[in-house]
């Protein structure tokens, strides 16, 4: 689309971990929005498909000193040396230059799963089964997102169907740019405690880029140098320490 070809956005998120209650509505909203099928009978937490997954993490103390935090982990939309892009043998993964969104094209994917081994955030999921919707729910699918077939990788793309809708709306109104309010991912929209702030990081003036630079805001695995565009915020020191720690350290 012309209106994005000219504007260079960098969409990202800031997630306030202190606000997240771990209710899980974001995960369900995500699945409904993006036509992710319910679990196959035998699916487990290691073979399921959850574009957005909330991990409960404990501080490891005993009762009652124990404390927990919920960490929503999605595709971090890496902006630098995006690990999954360079490895894909047939260009099924790419970073959209005009939005910074890391796109995955299931129709191009051959299902080699190299990208999944490359992703340090485990934000990519493989369709181990053919998607199965309970009889009748096919009619309830979101027409803006193509369902994926068995044997391909899939992941969060910031509800790209909603970006399409916003662009169509803008184009119909003869506008170049989309209205910021027209493009909000399902998880952000559905979060009861408004823990997720979404927007264009490139726009210095807006809230998300301000928060991304605020104190007590951090990223996961920043040392890998992949410049993830999902930021996290917590006033709790142990949470920030935990995020900074090496695994098994």
């Amino acid at each position, binding site marked *: *689309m*012309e*209106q*994005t*070809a000219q504007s260079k956005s960098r969409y990202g998120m800031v997630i306030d971990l202190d606000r997240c209650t771990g209710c899980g509505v974001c995960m369900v909203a995500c699945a409904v929005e993006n036509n992710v099928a319910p679990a196959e009978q035998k699916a487990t937490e290691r073979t399921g498909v959850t574009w957005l997954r909330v991990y409960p993490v404990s501080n490891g103390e005993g009762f009652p000193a124990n404390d927990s935090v919920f960490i929503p982990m999605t595709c971090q939309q890496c902006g630098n040396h995006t690990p999954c892009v360079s490895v894909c043998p047939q260009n099924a993964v*790419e*970073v*959209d*230059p*005009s*939005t910074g*969104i890391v*796109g995955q*094209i*299931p*129709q*191009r994917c051959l299902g080699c799963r190299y990208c999944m081994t490359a992703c340090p955030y485990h934000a990519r999921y493989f369709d181990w089964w053919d998607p199965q919707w309970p009889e009748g729910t096919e009619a309830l699918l979101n027409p*803006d*997102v*193509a*369902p994926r077939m068995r044997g391909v990788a899939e992941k969060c*793309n910031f509800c*790209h*169907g909603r970006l*399409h*809708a916003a*662009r*169509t*709306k*803008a*184009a*119909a*109104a*003869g506008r170049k740019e989309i209205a910021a309010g027209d493009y909000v991912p399902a998880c952000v929209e559905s979060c009861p405690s408004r823990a997720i702030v979404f927007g264009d990081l490139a726009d210095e003036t807006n809230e998300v880029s301000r928060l991304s630079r605020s104190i007590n805001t951090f990223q996961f695995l920043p040392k890998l140098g992949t410049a993830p565009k999902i930021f996290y915020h917590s006033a709790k020191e142990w949470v920030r320490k935990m995020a900074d720690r090496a695994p098994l350290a």
Partner: protein
Amino acid sequence: MQFNHAVHTGEQNGMTCDMCHEFTENGSFKGIPTIAKCTECHSAAIGSTESEKVLVEQFVTPHKEIPWKVYSRQPDNAYFPHAAHVKRAEIKCEECHGPHGSSNTLPVYQVNRISGYSRDIWGRNISGLPSHPWEGMKMDRCVRCHAERHRDDSCLDCHK
């Protein structure tokens, strides 16, 4: 059910494409019109042609939708916003759909048994070499046109 585009777009009626193939308010394209659209003019037979008689008797009066075949149906994974192309980029319908607006009859609808695509998507020639500039609606066609207009595109611009 036969349909004669020429009669509608010809001199005596002089209708344009978007009179029947409309947009909705949110910018999405309605595609082939519903029977309601036909009824606006054909609530009762205007002319005396056989096919109009069929239209009025079998569809308009009982308010039954006509089972049109969609010759340029793209698969579910493709996203093509008519608004952006027709309204913003001001591309003529004919550039992609060809001059069927002036055709007198509907061509035979042919479908590829393996891919399930309408033949118009691949184009008439099995070699994939178009015999007309507007023939074929596969991805390479989109890519070529976009390249000519120097658009730095990403897959997700047109895939969903």
